[in-house]
């Protein structure tokens, strides 16, 4: 149907949007160029300029990919992938420039890890599109890239010298393997979701899945609830770093009343899940409709919560139980919370896209069989990378701390991730698990990856305090 519809349209279909996106990108780039000419800030190929260019191109690509998702016009993809490629080039130059200035590969802190994450994401998008013909993937990865680049602007970016424990080539290998394998896991997750769409899983089930993810995010944020306030790490504007009381122990400040707002958001995320449960029990279509309405409400509330969080955490000083007077904070001090809030909203928007455009999407995606096979192949790439990442990490730990395995939470969770994917491979190879069950397994695997990457750092601090 959509093919036929696309063919019916004249060759100029969608020109308006292309011109619009192109013009806004040109305006953004031009103003930046003029600003640069005035301010004379370093060479044009400097990291910050290149990142800005990458941001503009990724945003343009993201808009076009999303428009493709909605309208199904093939031309959008062509320009979107050109834009992605230019953005990728800009990111490569930015990373290269940083590497050159620092004299070491850029993998040592959150900012640099995000840089390499964005780089891998763009590369994976291009590969998935050109090699596997999964064109729609850009509408997920490009917004992610945009969010990551914006997040990077909030983090301290100056090239920092490495503390002694991090001065090892093995560390660079370890971190790059981690980024590559996590990115492969992320792609397998996206593919598994697409498989479920193609496998005619009910839209309501996606709704429950999305709501479940949101509940998980806001429930873990409740750990920062402090009698109505919300605790965030303090930020030292001079040092451009978090404030620590002891090694690996941050000084928390409490933003008053924000805690209640997040409680409200948590309740709103629970509502669609509860309504879904009622609908399942009563087998009532009506309640599925209510659940969808609750979904709208929670997304709106989440946007309000996000705005409130950004307004209040972006600056200002708040009281802290561990210090006298007011202690400043900044958005840069709470990258994980910000990522969680933005991620939840993003998941909600993707669900809305699915709800409105299900049929169109299903025609654009590769067949269920293909997706099932590609998911498996992606995990076949991710698993050896995970193995090597753990092995190199163990070797590095042995050289630095004198022990290749010390059951530190991050290590343990990396092993758990490895075991989950090992389980997936066993079920698939020896017991012939395909389709739905395999897709659920791939989703579970990525959930564990997310927990290992964000959750462990945020909830269970250990030796990996640097990253």
């Amino acid at each position, binding site marked *: 149907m959509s093919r036929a519809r696309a063919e019916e349209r004249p060759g100029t279909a969608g020109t308006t949007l292309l011109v619009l996106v192109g013009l806004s990108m040109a305006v953004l780039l031009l103003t930046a160029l003029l600003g640069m000419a005035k301010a004379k800030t370093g060479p044009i190929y400097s990291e910050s300029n290149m990142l800005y260019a990458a941001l503009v191109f990724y945003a343009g690509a993201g808009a076009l990919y999303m428009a493709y998702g909605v309208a199904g016009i093939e031309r959008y993809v062509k320009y979107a992938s050109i834009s992605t490629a230019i953005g990728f080039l800009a990111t490569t130059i930015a990373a290269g420039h940083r590497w050159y200035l620092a004299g070491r590969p850029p993998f040592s802190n959150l900012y640099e890890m995000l840089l390499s994450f964005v780089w891998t994401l763009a590369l994976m998008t291009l590969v998935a599109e050109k090699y596997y013909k999964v064109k729609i993937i850009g509408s997920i990865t490009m917004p992610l890239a945009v969010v990551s680049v914006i997040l990077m602007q909030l983090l301290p970016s100056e090239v920092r*010298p490495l*503390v002694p424990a991090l001065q090892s080539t093995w560390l660079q290998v370890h971190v790059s393997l981690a980024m590559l394998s996590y990115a492969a896991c992320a792609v397998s997750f996206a593919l598994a979701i697409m498989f479920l769409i193609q496998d005619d899983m009910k839209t309501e089930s996606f709704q429950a899945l999305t709501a479940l993810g949101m509940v998980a995010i806001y429930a873990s944020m409740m750990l920062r609830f402090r009698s109505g306030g919300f605790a965030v790490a303090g930020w030292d504007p001079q040092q451009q770093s978090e404030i620590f009381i002891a090694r690996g122990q941050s000084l928390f400040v409490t933003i008053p009343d924000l805690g209640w707002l997040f409680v409200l958001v948590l309740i709103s995320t629970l509502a669609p899940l509860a309504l879904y449960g009622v609908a399942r029990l009563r087998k009532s279509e009506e309640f599925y409709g209510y659940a969808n309405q609750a979904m709208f409400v929670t997304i709106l509330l989440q946007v309000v919560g996000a705005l409130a969080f950004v307004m209040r955490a972006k600056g200002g000083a708040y009281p802290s139980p561990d210090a006298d007077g007011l202690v400043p904070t900044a958005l840069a001090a709470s990258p994980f919370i910000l990522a969680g809030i933005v991620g939840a909203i993003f998941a909600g928007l993707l669900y809305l896209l699915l709800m409105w455009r299900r049929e169109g999407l299903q025609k654009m995606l590769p067949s269920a069989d293909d997706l099932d096979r590609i998911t498996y192949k992606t995990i076949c790439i991710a*698993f050896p990378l995970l193995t*090597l990442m753990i092995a190199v990490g163990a070797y590095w730990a042995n050289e630095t701390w004198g022990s290749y395995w010390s059951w530190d939470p991050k290590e343990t969770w990396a092993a758990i991730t490895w075991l989950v994917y090992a389980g997936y491979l066993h079920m698939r190879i020896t017991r012939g698990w395909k389709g739905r069950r395999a897709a659920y397994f791939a989703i579970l695997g990525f959930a564990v990856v997310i927990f290992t990457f964000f959750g462990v750092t945020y909830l269970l601090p250990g030796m990996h305090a640097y990253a």
Partner: protein
Amino acid sequence: MGVKAVWDKIYKTLATVRTGIILLITVVIVSALGTLVLQRPTSDVDVIRRTYSPTTLLWLDRLGLTDVYHSWWFVGLLALVSLSIIFVSIERWPNAWRFYARPYRRPEAHFRAVLPNREEFSVKDAKEGIDAATRAFAKAGLKAEKIVDNSEISLYAEKHRFSVFAVYIVHASLLLIFAGGIVDALYGYRGFVAIPVGDTVNAIEMHDAKGNDFKKPMPFALRCDGAGQENYPDGTPKKWWSNLVVLKDGQVVKQKQIIVNDPLIYHGIRVYQASYGQTGKLDHAELRAAPTSGTASPQLITVAMNKPVELDADTTVTLTRFEPDFYVQDNQVFTKSESPDNPAFELKVNTKSTGKDVTLWLFPRFNNISQGPASPYTFAYADMKMANFTGLEVSFQPGQWGVWAGVLLMAFGLTVAFFMAHLRFWAMVVDDPKKGLVLWVGGACNKNKERFETRFKELTSAIREELRASGNGDGAQTKTNG
């Protein structure tokens, strides 16, 4: 039930993939649990005491949840996983070995009829058809084996036959890693030692499962000849180093400057740079001493704790006390910290001829001059050097070589398992009652089927070329598939 019946039952239960998966899930749950409860070996005792109430802690300890990864049941669980891997491998080995040792080389009629990847070409002459196929096989990099049976000639070529063992390699490597871990758990140890510069130690500090500290003697003594820290311009530490000497029976057997990431290794015992700091003690200080009366110019002296320094034939001065960061309370001198931010020196000036001792305090941050009414000399601070200690992590892990060997083996096994496929190709000239003389070509592969299909198509088009070139048949296909 007899012993044999019980054993059979256990063996049969463990020798299934299902049991293996259930055990894996249990390991996952238990290890996750261990990251949620503070673990004795990696957490500070005070932190544990602050986090849990005494009753909770008692129960956590009783259940072994405060040291999950070293508890007998966790080790037992890992042992069961290992046994399950071994038994499943034994169960599946005969089939795998048969497949490896006796490859299916001659395609029978029933096999030729059902193989998914197959193609047939009409040929005029049997021998020339086989020759054309041999040449095409060779061009595709395949070494074909000619099989003659009952005047029927067929070709067989294969690649990476050993890849059928990849699964065994991966599981064996896992067992090797476990074995290394077990050896280390039984015979390995890890501890910490802080050595002030110039001192020698021969025992390390460890704590046992209950969190009690004890000292374990080392088979050698370790002396620290120097330690230091280099900083980046912004003041963050760049490098910690220590000059270490290994002494055995009083003899120097090894010397090395270690830095973070570059340990000293002696007979399997590794000594790592872990931390560096100040002991709060003084190494030496330089003072300017000027006679109270007379016009003699001040002299620069170097003082160390409790070592008298001669100022002139009649007078000596001794540093009797040092506080790095002093404060005064109730007319007494105390120290606030171990960093030399605000030092205080207590000096004793002794005059031999009178036998009189005068005690003076010198506070460089205040007036930097010290004079007592009865002292023959005044002292001013010039410079000082603090005594440092180096913090060393000492570990002995004889099993680590098993672990590294296992890791390398696993990397190899996974490469073979995921990226190497067992490729098989057959060719045979058949006299078909309906189609006449045909060259049948077939191929099979155990993974990555799409890529194999293109490879198979390349081979068949090469055969077609060869047949055309040799004038044997027109290379027309009598049957295509797909």
